[in-house]
């Protein structure tokens, strides 16, 4: 169940005013960019083989938010995606289901029907995704639509314009309002669009801002800009959720999204999770991959491990 930041936790007063929030966010320690990238790169060199690899692949499949966010999405395509999420590899029933399907709000009902009874969740992007450039009323209506249609999870985008202009309280209030619109029915993922935040310091500030406002998940990107999830920015966000739990006792999930296409990449991210926040996050309740083509590569690798032969794109679906 969604856990909102409790009113009693020690950080309550930092959101009392714009200036106290700014003082808090700018008081966060600066990010050592070189050290961060070196750490992410060195964790990416771990060799994960045989049984560990098989475990990692199954875990990664179970963490995928199978995503289709195209203008050309049809009900048929969403149904096909739902079927794939429930049973990713029809030739091998031991393959786990994915965590969720992720669609636009108007496709939630279709997706909900497609995955009914399977335990696969339906996530919906909302709040004028991907730009987030709309009035708050419009964004909230978007969220309520998605929740009313049955979305189990809502992926909102923050107002990057306001964030970059330093209006942190505006961003905070918006997230809180969306959090309320989600109610208890849906978990809230907050997308920062790290590729547009320019600096690692900003990503750290945004992470804390999102968590203070009650995000259940913090998510790197929309997948619609040039720079999406990278090991470095995901590591930074993992450090933020680790520190946040240490201070407040509230656990927040992380979802890197966009640009993760290969099994090798996915396993690198899992190593980051294990080494930074530990096993508590190695579960699809707390860590997700926002991806579409990643799943096919995971399935091909899974087939390779099972049969000893290299598989090919003819043996997975064309999405």
């Amino acid at each position, binding site marked *: 169940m969604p856990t909102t930041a409790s009113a009693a936790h020690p950080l309550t007063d930092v959101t009392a005013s714009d200036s106290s929030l700014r003082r808090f966010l700018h008081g966060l320690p600066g990010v050592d960019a070189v050290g961060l990238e070196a750490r992410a790169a060195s964790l990416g060199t771990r060799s994960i083989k045989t049984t560990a690899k098989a475990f990692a692949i199954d875990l990664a499949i179970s963490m995928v938010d199978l995503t289709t966010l195209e203008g050309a999405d049809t009900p048929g395509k969403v149904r096909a995606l739902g079927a794939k999420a429930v049973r990713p590899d029809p030739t091998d029933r031991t393959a786990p289901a994915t965590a969720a399907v992720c669609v636009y709000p108007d496709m939630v009902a279709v997706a909900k029907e497609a995955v009914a009874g399977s335990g696969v969740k339906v996530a919906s992007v909302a709040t004028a995704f991907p730009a987030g450039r709309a009035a708050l009323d419009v964004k909230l209506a978007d969220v309520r639509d998605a929740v009313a249609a049955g979305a189990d999870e809502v992926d909102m985008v923050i107002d990057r314009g306001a964030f970059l202009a330093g209006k942190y309280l505006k961003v905070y209030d918006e997230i809180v309002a969306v959090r309320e619109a989600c109610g208890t029915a849906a978990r809230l993922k907050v997308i920062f669009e790290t590729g547009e935040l320019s600096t690692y310091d900003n990503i750290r500030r945004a992470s804390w801002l999102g968590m203070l406002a009650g995000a259940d998940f913090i998510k790197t990107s929309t997948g619609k800009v040039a720079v999406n999830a990278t090991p470095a920015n995901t590591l930074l966000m993992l450090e933020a959720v680790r520190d946040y739990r240490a201070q407040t006792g509230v656990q927040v999930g992380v979802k890197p999204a966009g640009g993760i296409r290969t099994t090798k990449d996915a396993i690198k991210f899992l190593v980051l999770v294990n080494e930074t926040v530990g096993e508590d996050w190695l579960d699809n309740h707390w860590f997700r991959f926002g991806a579409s083509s990643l799943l096919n590569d995971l399935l091909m690798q899974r087939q390779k491990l099972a049969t000893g*032969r*290299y*598989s*090919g*794109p*003819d043996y997975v679906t064309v999405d």
Partner: protein
Amino acid sequence: MSDRLSVLKTYKLYVGGKFPRSESGRVYEVTDSKGKWLANAPQSSRKDARDAVVAARKAFGGWAGATAYNRGQVLYRVAEMLEGRRAQFVHEVADAEGLSKSKAAEQVAATIDRWVWYAGWTDKIAQVVGGGNPVAGPYFNLSSPEPTGVVAVLAPQESSFLGLVSVLAPVIATGNTAVVIASERSPLPALSLGEVLATSDVPGGVVNVLSGRTAEIATPLASHQDVNAIDLAGADEVLAKELEIAAADNLKRVLRPQPVDDWAATPGIDRLTAFLETKTVWHPTGSLGASGSAY
């Protein structure tokens, strides 16, 4: 000048239009026919084979979709480039096969002529093996040859250059893409051919050249689900049998090794047709008039 340090060449693989070292970091020593060290060649692993298949698959659509005339021009361009590097290939072939300079020069000349020969076939093979079929009905019925897809080619072990080109050129002339395993003992001419292909107009990934232990690289290729055909020219009897069994799994088209006495002899079109599929389409001639004829 006498005390100038020699500049040794680092031979590399040719995969996806690039020149990587083996993913495994391994190399092996290549010697001439008398056992004298010539160079270190990369010893490819199964992961190099996998990467090469990915590159070949990626290149397939563009190459198969190019017009036959265009493919012919590209292949002719390869022959032009080879002509310019004749001296290098004469040297490498002479070392590899223990031939005299003049014999090696003959081999290289025959190899270049072989490229030209296959370059000419690209836009003629369809007329020879395809065409209109007479059928009893108001239809046009047309058969046309289509490339099979990604072809793994085990280059002949003995003829390191002429043999290689004789098996490679027909594969790509018809629009397939190739993953070639160079002769295990003398891979240098094949690796240098990669450099020629990179500087001609052949798109990256159409030809991928791997060197190393033939059996080690061929095994994962034969069982690879995304390889459509395999040419076993460079496999001995035992290996060929093993590979053919592995290849059966996804119904790969298999060309068994055939004894070749003289690679210089005119090859015929057997190797061109080995990796072609025949597509047949029916097309109505239009509604029949009162006279019983559409014309």
